């Protein structure tokens, strides 16, 4: 049987969810027998491929690049997992929402605290504009499965992956559904 094609994607998060994925430790070696990692920040593939079976998406949607990436991965993937609290609720990444627009957070960081050349980075085509409101993933694309936690601990990631790999769907219960 062909190995399942699995991807992991970073949007607006802290990469802690990806680190927790790496905390699978030696199980990663077994996992590599069962699945093929076809796209991830830890491998050198630059283009999100077609026909992905499963993707773990870390982070909230907070700039225009994220919108594009989210839509593209939805088109090309069978099962999309909202991976970690930032993707599930917006979490810390969304703490800027109640305050003000994107510009006022940018002003604080690049106009008020710079000693030289105070300016908001805006190079077109290079620096993606921020959205005024940070969104959880399901506000932008349909999501098939939620894995909360900040980050979800490795054993929970493993439990979810095993369910998905063996039955094609996943249902987390009880203590496995925990934020923070």
């Amino acid at each position: 049987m062909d190995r399942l094609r699995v991807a992991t994607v970073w949007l607006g998060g802290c990469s802690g969810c990806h680190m927790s994925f790496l905390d699978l430790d030696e199980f990663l070696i077994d996992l590599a027998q069962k699945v093929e990692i076809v796209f991830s920040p830890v491998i050198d593939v630059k283009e999100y491929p077609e026909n992905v079976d499963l993707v773990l998406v870390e982070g909230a949607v907070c700039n225009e690049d994220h919108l594009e990436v989210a839509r593209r991965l939805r088109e090309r993937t069978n099962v999309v997992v909202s991976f970690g609290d930032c993707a599930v609720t917006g979490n810390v990444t969304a703490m800027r929402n109640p305050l003000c627009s994107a510009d006022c957070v940018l002003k604080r960081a690049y106009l008020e605290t710079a000693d030289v050349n105070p300016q908001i980075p805006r190079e077109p085509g290079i620096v993606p504009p921020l959205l005024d409101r940070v969104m959880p993933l399901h506000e932008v694309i349909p999501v098939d499965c939620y894995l909360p936690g900040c980050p979800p601990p490795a054993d929970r990631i493993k439990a979810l992956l095993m369910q998905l790999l063996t039955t094609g769907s996943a249902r987390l219960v009880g203590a496995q559904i925990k934020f923070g």
Partner: protein
Amino acid sequence: MARRILIDPVTRIEGHAKITIHLDDEGNVADARFHVVEFRGFEKFCEGRPLGEMPGITPRICGICPVSHLLASAKACDAILAVNIPPAAEKLRRLMNLGQIVQSHALSFFHLSAPDFLLGWETTPATRNVFGLVAANPELARAGIRLRQFGQELIEHLGGKKIHPAWAVPGGVREPLTEAGRDAIKGRLPEAFTTARLALKLFRDVLSKHSREIQVFGNFPTLFMGLANTDGTWEHYDGFLRFVDAGGNVIADGIEPAQYREAIGEAALPDSYLKAPYHKPLGYPDGIYRVGPLARLNVCQRMGTPEADAELERFRRFGRGAVTSSFLYHYARLIEIVCSLERIQELIDDPDLLSERLRANAGVNKLVGVGASEAPRGTLFHHYEVNEDGLITKVNMIIATGQNNLAMNRTVAQIARHYLPSGNGKITEPMLNRIEAGIRAFDPCLSCSTHASGRMGLEVSVLAANGTVLDAASVD
């Protein structure tokens, strides 16, 4: 015809970034730039939060080095409380930081960078990664994975969680080490040493075959900054700021981290969400300096532990005064792993680690506090201002990786000039991967300010001098 080459995203680094390479009319590299393309705004949205929440919120800046933010944040809070924390709490915080240095450096070496030089620069991109390393050398990959695990478990034994433990607090820490935790750490130390020594040996072999990389992977004079002890010993948690120049001469010393603003200025850039700090007395951009393992080894006189000191001596032979090649960040990182393990071994039997006296209690006694610590990637500053009620009014953070921004820009330009063909020769994937590897040497942690994914794909756009796209192609 001028062209611009875009590498997007840079892979096998922690966080997302792009690189642009600008070619002039003759097809020679005119400049190259490193862009960090995401921003989350912690400096703004922490305003109005109670001080005590900061060590809980700010680690979410970065899941790779959350402990650094946890400690810098707790130290800024200690300063606002105006307390000296109990000695046991300081030892415990140091222990956790050492665990973090081990796990983060192991990640950088085994999971991210080693595939380049252990599997080879010309390996196909599909297998040039940690899973490729698993296939090619399963025992080594397993050892590397377990070394990172050792560091992560140490953090968990102290804080109850591997990532984002809510453990350090204003005035100290919440929990001591348990006897079971201590024994578990001790039990795994010998294996961790074995792996660290193996990595060092492997890397020394790599160095003997990589003299070209040593010469052109970000090898140029800059200043170096790090925390150092008053007696000149390597430091990771406390101490003073010290700057040395490329000749290894100390040019500024004994600077209290709270006075960082006198030593460090920040410039904003039009094409990156990463600001560019510089050494203020030399101005921008002449005040370019580097931080992190290479810088820490350059600013200190000694590591303070026997094995690491013996290795430091070998390391120093690569420089005249300071070691200036960024390729040797990898070497410095491995020496720091050994040093951290030796220090964990020294510390682990200290009965204070089991003490219950762990927290100094006080209210708001000062309205400003700065906390600094050495994150795996360099000196990290948290600077808070509060009102009388302890609510945050202002936050500024200088993130370790940002301080290497100017040097990373210069590195990508240096590698591009060296490896890209002059004229209009064919640009290949391994050439571009070397440019990315120049960034990997710094082990940048862009989570700290970023995460973006841009248009995926390694694109080469051919631009006319006025910037219009004449031709576009993908490099696979």
